[in-house]
C-alpha cells in the first residue's frame, strides 16, 4: 500500500522494493557501520532478532558489541544508554513497546530530558530511543497504546513518528547526529508495509511536517499509521469531488505548526487524526494552536478523530471501534463540507 505517494525523485537512478521493517534495519546497519560509536541495545534485539523482527540477522552480521541483548530492565538499560551517551558513545536503545517504556519513564523524563538544563548546559545527552507503538493487532491493553503524544509533552526531548519508508530509513541517522535525546516511535502495524525506496536513500530532516497530498477543501492532520487512514479517506473523498490536503506531522516535538497553519489558511477546515486518546493529547495541542493562531481562517470548528477513551480491548471488533478509521474521517469531512455547502 502506498496510497499514491510518489516516492521517486528525478535523480534516483535505482529504486528498490523494501518494507518499513527492512528500512529501519538498513538504517541501523548503516549507522553502526558508519560511526564506530553507534551500538544498539534492548530486549531480544540480538539472538531473538527483535520482537518485531526489525534487527533479525544484525547480531550475526555486526557482532555482540554492536547488537547487545539486555535483560528485562527498561529503566536500567535506558539509563545505561544515557550514561554511555555521556561517556562518548552514540547508543540506540530499543524499548520493545511504548507501554514498556513507562518502566523507563524515570530515566527518559527525569534524566535524559533534564540533564542539559540541570547542568546549566554542561552535559548534553546524544541518545536515541526507538520503540514500537500503536494498536490494531489484538494485543490488548498493555501492548497497544499510543503514548507518543505524552512524550511530546516533555521539553528536552524530540519525538519522531516516521510513517513513510523514507522516514523509517532516514530519521535514525538524523536522530543520531542530534546532540540531544531523540525518541523514535515506530507504529508496529507499519513494519510490513511495502514500497519503493531509492537504493541510496539517506538522512532526512527531523524538524518539519510534510504535505503528503495537496488539496483545497479540508486539511487532514495526522502522523504515523493514522496517516494512511487519512490518505485512504482522501482518496474516497476525491471521488466525491472533495479535495483533502493531508499533512504528515512526522515530528511531534518540536511541532512544525507553520505547515498546518498555512494549510488551514488555504482550506479553512481542519481534522486531526490521532491514535492517542483525545483528552490531553497531541491532537488537543494542535487544535489549540489552530484556534489560537488561525481562528479567523476557519470556516468550521476543528474536528478530532482519536482513539476512544478506553484501554485498547482485545476483541477485534471492539479494538477496531476504539481506533480511528478512514470511514469516520470521510463521514466527518462530508458533514463539515455540507454544513456550509
Amino acid at each position: 500500500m502506498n496510497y499514491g505517494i510518489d516516492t521517486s525523485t528525478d535523480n534516483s537512478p535505482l529504486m528498490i522494493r523494501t518494507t518499513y521493517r527492512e528500512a529501519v534495519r538498513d538504517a541501523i546497519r548503516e549507522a553502526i557501520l558508519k560511526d564506530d560509536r553507534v551500538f544498539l541495545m534492548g530486549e531480544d534485539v540480538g539472538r531473538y532478532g527483535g520482537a518485531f523482527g526489525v534487527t533479525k540477522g544484525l547480531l550475526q552480521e555486526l557482532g555482540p558489541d554492536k547488537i547487545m541483548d539486555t535483560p528485562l530492565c527498561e529503566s536500567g538499560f535506558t539509563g545505561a544508554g544515557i550514561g554511555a551517551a555521556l561517556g562518548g558513545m552514540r547508543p540506540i536503545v530499543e524499548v520493545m513497546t511504548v507501554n514498556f517504556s513507562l518502566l523507563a519513564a524515570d530515566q527518559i523524563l527525569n534524566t535524559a530530558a533534564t540533564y542539559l538544563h540541570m547542568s546549566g548546559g554542561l552535559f548534553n545527552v546524544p541518545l536515541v530511543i526507538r520503540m514500537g507503538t500503536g494498536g490494531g493487532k489484538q494485543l490488548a491493553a498493555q501492548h497497544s497504546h499510543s503514548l507518543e503524544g505524552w512524550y511530546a509533552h516533555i521539553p528536552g526531548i524530540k519525538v519522531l513518528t516516521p510513517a513513510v519508508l523514507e522516514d523509517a530509513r532516514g530519521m535514525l541517522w538524523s536522530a543520531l547526529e542530534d546532540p540531544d535525546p531523540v525518541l523514535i516511535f515506530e507504529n508496529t502495524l507499519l513494519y510490513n508495509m511495502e514500497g519503493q525506496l531509492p537504493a541510496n536513500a539517506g538522512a532526512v530532516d527531523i524538524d518539519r511536517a510534510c504535505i503528503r497530498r495537496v488539496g483545497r477543501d479540508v486539511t487532514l492532520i495526522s502522523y504515523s499509521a493514522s496517516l494512511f487512514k487519512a490518505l485512504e479517506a482522501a482518496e474516497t473523498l476525491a471521488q466525491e469531488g472533495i479535495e483533502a490536503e493531508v499533512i504528515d506531522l512526522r515530528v511531534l516535538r518540536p511541532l512544525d505548526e507553520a505547515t498546518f497553519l498555512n494549510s488551514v489558511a488555504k482550506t479553512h477546515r481542519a481534522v486531526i487524526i490521532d491514535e492517542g486518546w483525545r483528552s490531553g493529547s497531541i491532537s488537543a495541542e494542535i487544535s489549540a494552536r489552530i484556534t489560537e493562531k488561525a481562528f479567523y481562517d476557519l470556516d468550521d470548528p476543528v474536528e478530532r478523530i482519536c482513539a476512544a477513551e478506553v484501554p485498547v480491548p482485545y476483541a477485534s471488533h471492539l479494538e477496531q471501534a476504539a481506533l480511528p478509521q478512514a470511514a469516520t474521517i470521510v463521514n466527518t469531512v462530508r458533514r463539515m463540507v455540507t454544513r456550509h455547502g
Partner: protein
Amino acid sequence: MKKKHGTAQAPAAVNSHQHLRDLLYQMLRIRRFEDKCAELYSDMKIRGFLHLYNGEEAVAVGVMQALNPEDAIVATYREHGQALARGISMNTIMAEMFGKQEGCCRGRGGSMHLFNKEHRFYGGNAIVGGGLPLAVGLALADKKLDRKRLTCCFLGDGAMAEGEFHESMNLAALWQVPVLFVCENNQYAMGTALKYSHAVTNLVQKAASYGIDHAAVDGMDVLAVEEVAQKVAPAIRETGKPFFLECTTYRFRAHSMFDAELYREKAEVEQWKQRCPIATLTQQLKEQEKISDADLEAIEQLIHQEINHAIAFAEAGTWEPVEELTRFVYSEPSI
C-alpha cells in the same frame, strides 16, 4: 598501612603528616561549609531542598583519595561533600546554591544538582537510585572504548530498595563494567530506618547475590575508607569489574531543612556524634603529635577565609536574565 602509588592525584604515603592533615582539612572544610549553608538557609540566601553531609565526611574524602582525574563520579542529592572533595570550586558551588549564573550550573540546578565537566562530576541526582544506571552506562562506554578508568557511583541505603539498584547491579555484573558503587549507609532512608525498608539489612549481601565483589568498612574512619578505596580502585580499572563498598555512617543533621527528626532518638544522634570522623582523626593526630593546636587554628582560619570568599563571590554573582529562561532545553548550535 601501605598505600599504592602510581596515580597522578595520589598524595604522599597515607601516614605522612601532610596527608593526614590534608584529610582532616578536607573533612573539616566540608563540615564548616555545610554548617554555613544551614545558616545561609535560615538567612534565605539558599532555598529549595538542602541536604547536609555532616557526619558522613569520611566517606567522600576517603573514597576521593583513590580516584584519578580521568575517573567519573555520579553522586546523590546529598553531594556537596563529594563536589568539594573532588575539587569543584567552593565559589561556584556556593553561587549555584544562591541561584546565580556564576554557579557551577548557572543556577539551574541548585544544591541537589551540582555538575562539573572538568572533574567529570555527573551530578547531583535527586531521584533516589536514578544515578545508578547512568554510572553503569558511563562505565560501559569506557569498556567499549577500552579506557582504563572507573566510574564511582555514590548511593544511599535507601536506594538499595529501588528497582534501579537491582537492575544496575545485574547489568554491572553481567556486562562486567568498571563501577565502584559506594553505599553511604547512614541507616535512614529519609526518616525510615534500615530495618523498616530492608528485609535483609546486611547490605553487602545484596551485591554478593549479583556476584559482585564487595567490602564493608567503618564509614566514620577516613583512614579505613581510604585504605579500602585505594586497594580496590586500581583493581577495578585494571580488571574492568564492578565493586561494591558499604560505608557505615551517620547523618548528624536532619535529612533536609524541613525535617523535624521525629523518627530517631536524640540519644542515638548524640551517641553517633561521639564517633565523629573529624574529632576522631583530630584526636589521633594530636596523640601522635602530628598536629598542634596552632596547626588546627591555621586550618580553621584557612577554611573560614575560603567560605567567606565563596559567600562574597555568590553575593556578587548575577541573576541570569529571564530572557534566557528557555536556554539549555536543547543544545545550542556551536558558533
